[in-house]
Each structure stands twice: as C-alpha cells, then as structure tokens.
C-alpha cells in the first residue's frame, strides 16, 4: 500500500479534526463530480465540486502547494505554484512544491496543447484566494474587526497593530466554510506573478538529487528490457533465450504483448541479456514500406488545382518528414503490484487518464492504483501515450515483485508515436498591386491514427482574400501522435515560408509585406518590435541572410528573425531575435526558456532531424542519426517580451513553428534559393 497516499489522507483528517494545519481542497464546480468524489475517502464530506489543487499551511509556517500538472520541462511546478502563492499572499521562499499523486479530484492533470497555465489559472487563483479569505476571516474574528480591515501578505495577516502568521491562524481557519467565490487580487497588485522566478527544482537538479522516472529507488526493483519487433506490423514468432539466461544478473526471460522481456538485477544485465536473445521476426504486411513509398503515396493524393482568378500565380510544394520526440529521458516506468494494490511511478503527461487504464491493466480497483509522478526528462507530446506504463504493468503482474521497465535510446527512437510526415501543395494569386487575393492549400499527412497532422490550416494570420485549405491522409503503418505544436509544426513552417515567397513575388520587403496584411494588433506589434530589435533592413556581412516568421496561437504570439550564413560545413545560424506576447507572463524567465527551447526545436527540425522508414520500421536509433542541435549549432538568442495585461497564453509550443520558416527565409535571402523540404539539404 502506498504510504504516501495513506499519509496524505491522514493529514487531511487530522487537520479537519484537530486543526493542526489548514488543508484546503480547491474545488471546481462540476455537476458529475460528486459520484466520483464519493470513492475517495477525504472528499466524502465535501460539497459538490472537485478539488483541483491543494495547499497546506504547516505549523512551521511553510506552505505546501501541490502541483497536479506534470513538469516535463515547461516549468509547471514553478508557474502553477506561483499562481496559488500569489493569491494566498505567502512568502515565496516558504513555499514547498509537492507533485500530486494522480487523482480525479484535481480535475484535468494532463499537460499538452500548451494548456496548463490557461486551464489552471482561474481555478488555482481561486484556490489561493479562498485560503486567504479563510485566514483573513479567522484573524478578523480573533481581533473583532471587519475582514475588510485585514490584509494578507508574505504569510501574515495584518490589521492595524495586529499581526498573525498564517500558521497561527490555521486551526481557526480550518473550521470555516470554503468560500465559493473568493475575491481575486487585482493583477496590478501582483507581487509573485510576473516576477522572474527560478525553477523550484534547480538546486536538486544541479546537485544531482532530483528524482526523474529512471531515478526512482523508492522500492528495490528488478530492471526489465523488452526486445520488440523492428517492423511496425512485426511479430516475434520464435526466440531462443539460452545465451541470454547465461548473462550474470539475468533473472527471467518471457514473451509478452509487445515483445520478449528480459528481467535483470541491473539495467546492464537486462540490456545484455536482451542483446543475446536470438529471435525470428515475421514482419507482417508492412514489411516493404519505406519513406519513399509513403512520400509517393502522399504526392499522388494531391488533386489538380481548380480554376483560379486572374493574376500572378505562385505555386509551391513542401515536404516534412516523420519526427521522433526523443526526450532526453527514455520512456520508463516503475510498477509494483501486490496485495490487490498497484503502485506506479510514471513519467507521464497524463496521470489522470493513466489512472483508469492502469486499473484495468493491473486488474485492481481504480482506488487501489497510486500513480506517483516524478520529474520528467522532457515530453514534447511523447508521454501523452502511456504504452510504456501498460508494458510495465503487464510485466509487473507477471513478475510479482517491483519492476522498473527501461527503454533504451534505441527503443525510444524506434517505437515512438511519430509526428506524421506531410506533403503540402500551395497556390496563391496576387492582384496587380501585389496583394494575395486567392490562397489554396492542399495537405496530405501520412498516418491517420491520431489527429496529429496539419490542422487549422485555414487559420492564416493574414487578410488574403479568398482562403481555403483542405487535407487528407494516406494510411501508413507508422504510429503517429502529437508532437510539440502538433499541426503547427507543419503549417507554421509551410505558411510562413510561402508567405515569404509571396512577398518576393509582390516585389516587397518580407516584413512590410506581412505588416500590410496582418490584422491582429498584437501580432503586428510583435512583428514591428522584432524587426526593430533585429535591425531589419540593415546591411549584413557577405553570405549572411536574414529571415522572418510570425506565429500566433494558444493565446500567445511569437515572431522570429533569424540570421544565417552559408559555410563549407553547411548552414550556420548566427543570431535569433524573438519577440513574444503571451499576455500576463506568470514567470517571465520561464516564458523566455520556452521560446529559447522551442526555437532550438524548430531549428533542429529545419536542419537536422528526420525519421526514415525502411522495411516497415525506423532506421535511426539514437542521436547519432536522429540528430538534434548541439552547443556548436545553437545561436545567440535575444528574446524580448511584450508586457501585457491580457490573460495568460500558453507558452510550451509557441516558439517552435516559426523558427524553421525564419531560417529557410534567411537561407533564401543569403542564396536566392528556396528550400521547401525539411530537413534542408543544401544543394
């Protein structure tokens, strides 16, 4: 049984009964949540709404803020806690962040679609504000003054000469009802939100104490490795484990759903045992599929263009490859099933949906599943799929003891849910003044298993007259999934590269051309500021070009201007200037980190990354062949944030889509050649 979940419930009960600390569930009105709450002991007495996050004021005046959304590097553990802390009125240095064990009481726990801050901003503010009002009410009652005569800041409630720390008020406050509609702070009075704040885990990270999924040592666990078929439709028809079993530390070998499992005392033993398996694979129906055959099928799916109006016609086609997510920490999961309970340590982006899946797979009741979420070494969308956890559960069921399933880098590269490959045909017509009056876009994605291909293709940020887009897909055996910025990882590049071509066709400067057709004032401002900061139009050294790209979605705006030089070794990205408007920035430093990292992603896709299919499986096996930017590739990057009082936008993905377009446009400026297929291979 999970000690942690037991103790949390106990803390709550003790708090409610004895008043040793204020424990507050932030509940969201949700009509169907009552029934679900009933299955959780601590929620039974609660009103009909669902807790979303937790905060605890401890007797020593520390405040524990529970963060429900996993941190995959986007900084939720810091930004989510800042939101609660702001409304609570606590001293940030006294805040301890605790990662939630998966529970439906938190509401949506998933991290994807740049939705964490946008989805949690209001409920987390209410959670903090409700607690603050209760503490203030307790103080007001104690002093016999009006609540309006009191204020909470830095962890104390003040009124005239009266002053009490939160902890001293906790027992009284815990007896008060939770206000349903607490008054939120005026954003102008924010002291934590909007302040550059270091990641709460920095000290643990730089000292090596941070616990990621692979570092889970809470239970002594065997290690497991799986030999999977190479081909996506493959099946291991026979295996010989004689040599594998001779490896020192190998405990068992058996076949399960996705392959042949080797159990070892150490990761090394499991990996070595796996190396010595002799297997026969039946590749199945997709054994002959290649990247080239998929590309041909996509090209063949493009329809002839219908009639277009009179004017200057511009046409182009673009091709993008499959991509792996390649998070730095390979997939892994630690599971212990015993005595009717299932305890899981999963680096997942979706702890709440894993809960039900895990209960079914482990064949235990949902309230007997405990999912701990460790720190996570990158996600990028990969960990929206819980295949690795399902495997680990299956293995743990068989083994009976705790098991840590470890995917090798090779496994991670070859058994991903890939960003689909895509093919795009575009056609535009310009009138005599150079204004686009007609824009048509056909896109075909490879792999239709998820809605991961180009989307919102018609959501162009320009007033271009008649705009239409339509898409389709060709079936492939390649499993596909959401990849950071999802559809925009295709269209962000294609649109901004093609708009650049239209500017050239119109004989206009790329920035001036964009400004002539962008209507959204926030995007215009981001573009104007970026052009100014990058000295757009100033002379560059020989061989160097400058390119621009704009992007807007998730409630945020980002403009990139990239400078690049052609060298003997290929393209060198010299400098990137970005502007970003994300409304209220919870943590400005975190916003900049996301632009920095998103840009490296976009540039890596432009110049390096590609997943190739041969014989129905993936060719690449590690960062050796699935290449990513390294220090020598990484440009100097200036990021300028636009102050705004608009509500906070999502930041996890907004930095990605424009970067490859800005680079391709810079290469055009330097060479006069348009590169329309990614990754760019210089002629």
């Amino acid at each position, binding site marked *: 049984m999970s000690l942690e979940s037991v103790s949390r419930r106990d803390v709550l009960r003790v708090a409610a009964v004895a008043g040793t600390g204020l424990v507050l569930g932030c509940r969201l009105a949700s009509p169907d949540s009552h029934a679900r709450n009933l299955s959780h002991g601590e929620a039974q007495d609660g009103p009909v709404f669902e807790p979303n996050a937790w905060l605890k004021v401890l007797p020593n005046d520390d405040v524990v803020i529970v963060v429900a959304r996993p*941190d*995959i*590097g986007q*900084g939720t553990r810091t930004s989510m806690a800042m939101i609660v802390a702001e409304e609570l009125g606590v001293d940030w240095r006294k805040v301890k962040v605790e990662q939630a064990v998966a529970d439906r009481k938190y509401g949506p726990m998933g991290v994807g679609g740049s939705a964490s801050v946008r989805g949690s901003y209001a409920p987390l503010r209410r959670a903090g504000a409700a607690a603050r009002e209760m503490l203030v009410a307790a103080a007001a009652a104690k002093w016999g003054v009006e609540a309006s005569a009191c204020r909470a800041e830095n962890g104390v409630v003040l009124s005239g000469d009266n002053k009490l720390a939160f902890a001293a008020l906790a027992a009284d406050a815990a007896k008060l009802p939770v206000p349903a509609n607490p008054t939120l702070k005026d954003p102008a009075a924010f002291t934590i939100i909007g302040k*550059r704040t*270091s*990641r709460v*885990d*920095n*000290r643990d*990270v*730089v*000292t*090596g*104490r*941070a*616990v*990621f999924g*692979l*570092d889970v*040592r809470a239970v002594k666990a065997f*290690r497991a490795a799986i030999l999977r078929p190479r081909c996506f439709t493959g099946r291991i028809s026979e295996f010989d484990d004689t040599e594998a079993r001779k490896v*020192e530390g190998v405990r068992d070998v058996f076949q399960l759903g996705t392959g042949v499992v080797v159990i070892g*005392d*150490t*990761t*090394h033993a499991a*990996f070595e045992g796996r190396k010595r398996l002799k297997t026969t694979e039946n590749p199945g129906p997709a054994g002959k599929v290649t990247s080239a055959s998929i590309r041909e099928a996509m090209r063949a799916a493009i329809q002839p263009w219908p009639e277009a109006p009179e004017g200057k016609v511009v046409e182009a086609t673009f091709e993008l490859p499959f991509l792996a997510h*390649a*998070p*730095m*920490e*390979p997939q892994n999961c630690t599971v212990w099933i015993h005595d009717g309970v299932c305890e899981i340590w999963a680096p997942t982006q979706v702890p709440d949906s894993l809960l039900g899946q895990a209960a079914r797979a482990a064949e235990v009741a949902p309230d007997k599943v405990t999912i701990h979420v460790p*720190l*996570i*070494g*990158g996600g*990028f969308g990969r960990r929206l799929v819980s295949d690795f956890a399902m495997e680990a559960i299956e293995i743990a069921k068989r083994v009976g003891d705790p098991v840590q399933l*470890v995917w*090798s*880098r090779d496994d991670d590269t070859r058994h991903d849910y890939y960003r689909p490959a895509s093919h795009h045909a575009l056609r535009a017509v310009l009138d005599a003044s150079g204004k686009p009056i007609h824009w048509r876009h056909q896109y075909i994605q490879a792999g239709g298993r998820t809605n991961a291909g180009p989307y919102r293709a018609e959501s162009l940020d320009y007033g271009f007259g008649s705009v239409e887009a339509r898409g389709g897909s060709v079936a492939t055996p390649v499993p596909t999934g959401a990849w950071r910025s999802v559809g925009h990882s295709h269209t962000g590049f294609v649109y901004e590269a093609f708009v650049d071509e239209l500017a050239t066709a119109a004989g206009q400067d790329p920035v001036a051309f964009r400004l002539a057709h962008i209507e959204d004032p926030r995007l215009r401002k981001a573009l104007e500021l970026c052009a100014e900061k990058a000295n757009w139009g100033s002379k560059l050294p020989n061989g160097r070009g400058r390119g621009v790209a704009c992007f807007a979605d998730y409630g945020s705006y980002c403009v990139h201007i990239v400078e690049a030089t052609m060298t003997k070794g290929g393209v060198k990205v010299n400098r990137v200037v970005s502007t970003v408007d994300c409304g209220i920035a919870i943590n400005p*430093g975190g916003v900049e*980190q996301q632009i*920095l*990292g*998103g*840009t*490296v*992603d976009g540039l890596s896709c432009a110049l390096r990354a590609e997943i190739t299919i041969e014989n129905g499986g993936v060719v690449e096996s*590690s*960062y*050796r062949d699935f290449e*990513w930017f*390294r*220090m*020598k590739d*990484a*440009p*100097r*990057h200036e990021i300028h944030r636009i102050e705004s009082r608009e509500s906070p936008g999502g930041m996890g993905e907004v930095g990605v889509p424009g970067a490859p377009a800005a680079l391709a446009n810079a290469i055009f400026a330097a060479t006069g050649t348009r590169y329309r297929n990614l990754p760019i291979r210089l002629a």
Partner: protein
Amino acid sequence: MEHFELKVNGQNVRVEASGEMPLLWVLRDKLNLCGTKYGCGVGVCGSCVVLVGEFAARACMVPLKQVAGKSVLTIEGLSKTGDHPLQRAWMELDVPQCGYCQAGQIMAAAALLRRKPNPTDADIDAAMSDVICRCGTYDRIRSAIKLAAQGAPGSEEEVPA
C-alpha cells in the same frame, strides 16, 4: 563475482560486478548515485558525463574494470552544498528546463574550466557539443559557464577526488 575498488566522490567504494559493466550502471544501479543520467548508452548524448581523474568521460562507455583504482567525480560530489561556481551560475541564470541533461552539462563544463579557466565561445563549443540538451538550453549554458568562470576558480569547492 568479481569485485573492484575505486574512489567515488572522494570515498573508497568496493563494487561487486562484472568488469564489463559500464560505470554508468555501476553508479546508478549498484551505488544508487542517480545524478549521472542515462540518455543513450552509446556515447552520443553526454547525459552521463563524469570526471575520471581530471578528465570528462562518458560513463556509459567506460567499463568498470577501467576505473579500478581511479577517482571518479559525479555531480553529487562536485560540491558539498551545491555551491560550486558552476552550480551557482546554473541557478543564478535559471538554466535547467526539464533538467535531465544538466548533470552531464555541468560535469562537462567542470572539466572544461579545469583546463581553461576562461573559455572562449569556441572553447565552449568544442567542449560542450558532446552533451545534448533536448530542451535547448544551450544559450543559457554558455552564459552560465562564462559567469562561473568570472565568479570563481573552478576547483576550489570540489570535494577532493
């Protein structure tokens, strides 16, 4: 079973394991020193960088038998309290995103500063390009190395190897 003696973060340790076991798994699975990360196991990502003697080494590529009798320094031993100049600079400039690669980054930077107390951009490119950061924190790493170089000499607060 074979056994080997080595020094890890200044302490003598005795490890019972095959001499072929990579130092990475000795640290992680035998000694429960999990600061050194597994990223690829084939020497291409740098997540596992440690110091063997004075030099940066990829722990996934170094068999245990090769470090017998040698001194290994991992992120856990870089300083007693997390106050090595590199660690301070990393926190000051808020370098980590997911954080997974950062132990390898810091150890590679520690080796660099021992050789070149005032590294240029070119030195940093050369020394640090073996360590991938999938989150793309490079520009901040570059600044943090320079900050650490200005701030204090690289080896003063390290636990003696």
